[in-house]
């Protein structure tokens, strides 16, 4: 089985998620090559061929150009699967490749099973097992679902060039809004989810964070509702974190949130609903009312 991994590179930097692709390929037991629009000064540690297009020439992500590069390599390599991360890059590009190759795409894989690929559905509440019915398959994998490959090996680099006309023109990046907290550096994060009920309850969660010497985190709905500033948002659209202790208070566990925190060392979830998806990743699930349990825990800690 041959796989083509599509690495990610943005603004002169190789993204760490690239190593998850390698980890996935390892689990799949596939012989893999990689395609990267990047620069030879920042190549991943990888034992295999890297087809490298120079980002200095190609510019930042242009889907038409990247699709064209992938199709060229697919033509050379004839891989069984083409693997992307399920990120803004992957979910944008993968279906374009699948369409061009007229092959199946399986999105946001969380596990590999004997019957096919396991993917989340119904807001992470359920799972599907999906099989491809075409010879070649495009895959996207969920961030954080697969082990990160050890950073070892030396790639064999093959340079690529191509030119396309595109109807899409990249204009530029807008930086994330200024952060007043750097959750990535926190040892403890206590996160407020929709289950805290209302804005006035957020200080209760903050008090627990303070008692543990940690930072306040927030789920997307809480940020969207304006209860907590965006800089505290944990998840794929906020910050991806891996503290020593992560306490999720009233967070049901939307997939984007889980992806952003599941690598934490120890996860405690406090939720009224025993069946909330957050339970999947929690080391400890406390079935209780957040507004009763959290103040009691804070009081005990002080």
């Amino acid at each position, binding site marked *: 089985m041959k796989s083509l991994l599509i690495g990610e590179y943005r603004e002169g930097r190789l993204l760490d998620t690239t190593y998850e692709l390698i980890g996935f390929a390892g689990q799949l037991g596939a012989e893999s090559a990689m395609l990267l629009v990047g620069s030879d000064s920042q190549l991943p540690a990888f034992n295999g061929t890297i087809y490298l297009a120079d980002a200095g020439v190609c510019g930042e992500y242009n889907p038409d150009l990247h699709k064209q590069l992938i199709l060229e390599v697919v033509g050379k390599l004839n891989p069984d699967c083409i693997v992307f991360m399920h990120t803004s890059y992957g979910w944008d590009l993968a279906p374009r490749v699948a369409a061009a190759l007229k092959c199946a795409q399986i999105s946001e894989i969380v596990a590999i099973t004997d019957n096919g690929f396991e993917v989340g559905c119904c807001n992470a509440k359920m799972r599907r097992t999906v099989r491809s019915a075409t010879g070649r398959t495009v895959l996207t994998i969920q961030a954080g679902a697969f082990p990160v490959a050890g950073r070892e090996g030396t790639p064999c680099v093959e340079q690529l060039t191509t030119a396309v006309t595109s109807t899409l023109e990249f204009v530029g990046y807008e930086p994330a809004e200024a952060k007043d907290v750097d959750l990535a550096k926190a040892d403890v994060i206590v996160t407020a989810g929709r289950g805290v009920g209302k*804005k006035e309850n957020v200080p209760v969660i903050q008090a627990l964070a303070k008692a543990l010497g940690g930072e306040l985190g927030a789920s997307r709905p809480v940020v969207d509702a304006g209860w907590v500033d965006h800089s505290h948002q944990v998840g794929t659209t906020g910050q991806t974190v891996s503290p020593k202790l992560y306490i999720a208070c009233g967070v049901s566990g939307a997939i984007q949130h889980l992806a952003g925190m599941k690598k934490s060392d120890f996860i405690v979830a406090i939720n009224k609903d025993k069946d909330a998806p957050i339970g999947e990743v929690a080391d400890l699930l406390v079935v209780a*009312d957040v507004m009763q349990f959290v103040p009691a825990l804070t009081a005990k800690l002080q």
Partner: protein
Amino acid sequence: MEATREIYWNIGHGVVLPMYLLTLAAVGVLVWGFWKRLPLYRLGKPLDRCDRYEERVNRMIGDLLGQEKVARVRDGGLPHNLFFWGFLTLFVGTLIIMVQADFLTPVAGVNLLKGEFYKAFSLVLDLAGLVALVMLGALFVRRYFVRPEGLETVNDDIVIHTLLFGILLTGFLIEGARMAATELVQQPDLASFSPVGKVFAQLFVPFDTSSISASHKVFWWVHFALVLGFFCAIPYTKLRHIVTTSANGFLVPLEPKGTIPTINMEDETVEQFGAAKVSDLTWKDIFDADACTTCKRCQDRCPAHVTGKPLSPMKLIKQIGETAETTPDAALPEVIGADAIWACTTCRACQDICPANNEHVGKIIELRRNLTLMEGAFPGDEVRGAVGNLEVNGNPFGLAYASRGEWAEGLPVTLMESGAEVDILYFVGCYASFDKRNREVATSFVTICAAAGIRVGILGKEEKCCGEPVRKLGNEYLYQMLAQENIELIKGYGVKKIITTCPHCFNTLGRDYRDLGLDVPVEHYSTFLHGLIKEEKLRLTAEAAPFDVTYHDSCYLGRYMDVIEEPRSVLTKAGGRIREMAKSGYDSFCCSAGGGRILAEEKIGTKISEARVSMALETEAPLLVSNCPFCLTMFEDGIKTGGAEGKLVVRDLAEIVAERVKA
């Protein structure tokens, strides 16, 4: 010598014609003044408030003579009433004199004003004048020296006080002058029947007859001129309330309290829903501004106003009138302000106390209907979410509709869809179905019913929100969608009686659903339990030691449905010793959750629930009992955030009863 007096003494009968002509002219000015206001009222939409004519006349006369609503607030109300009766007596006395002098004497040659009747007549009028004068003084002191908070004093007030003082004082001066020259000399015994006049007469005693006669003439004409001025001022000053407020006694809504017009959703010619402009309201809504006396009682009792929200029911009434008068095309939401419009809890405290029978809540609903149905606006994003949840899952929490009946698992309750026969349909409502705290109330209620041998049926997952909160927020469309589904369902099961544990469901199913075709008796559980106890189907074990408790009248049970005594009786039978809060019964203070506010965050001012909790704390009872899931929720919250934990516990009446049911 017979007790009587000469009318037109010192003035002469020659004055009769000019006097009547001038009076007629003054009345003409009065009528003209109101006539000119008619186009203002006509800006509003038509509304029939002349049906059931006799009933209306009776109510108006009762209101007018009884002045009961004015007396409900002692401060201001009592002196106003005494003044009113005094002044009215003087007015009637003047009419009697007029009839005697200008009709009975010249036409029939009969004199009624003589003998014992005249003595009584003199005494009554004299005292009436005294009472009016003293009360006017009291009101003057209140307005200009005590200055109660929120009382707005305008130029009208000084004009009115001057006119009335002038009329009363000159009246006594005329009497004093006449008595000094006649009664004091000729019939000193008779003078005792005019004790106040006698005092005024002393002022004139030192003077000679011609001076008395001259000053009498002057005072008579000044008095007459002031009376004419009074007539003329009525339509142009706050005095107009004499006419408009009285008229409002006739124009009261006669349908059950809390009735909101049901919009016909089939009518495709309607292009405007709710009130964006004054012309979208009814003429009565504009007229109410004229009937308002700015007594500010509504404002004093408004839970939103007293906790710092930008709503004053009084200001709202006035703003509508002013807009009609000055800028009839102005956008009302801008004039009044969306925050004020959304702040109302529809608790009806304003409307209940209004001595002018003004209708505040209906105006708010119309303003909200415009915001909701025409602009798709919400008081906050949390309400937008809750409304979305209601549309999809039939409950504001967004919980799976299929789990609505799960609270009843293992309880003696039948699902209506099973087809088994039941005595009552328990319409559970969203809070008792889904909210953990309120599920205890639902459980308590069915436990009580089981003990009384009542077979209870529920709709389970088929039940939907009754639609009350969204209706009060103006979303008539969603309300009717939810209502129609519930009505079809209930009709389909041939239900004979519905009981609710929620006063909001009770109001909605029992009154509002009638407009949409549901005609099944609906009762709130507090009266239902009261009935069961009375019929001895339910027996309670009053605890050996009675317990102290304070009872909160929910707005929608007390003020809206007049259920005040029954829950108290049940509570007492269960061993409760009720310590009333300062505001109870019809004067109860809202918990904050009415009017759809249950779905909204309270972002402005202080918390209404905390204000109410502190009133409960003042009774020093350790237990607060309510009868409404919204109240229970709000007080649980208010006790926590208001720092009353450990001092006060809130429970529902059903929970208290369930613990004391004799098997």
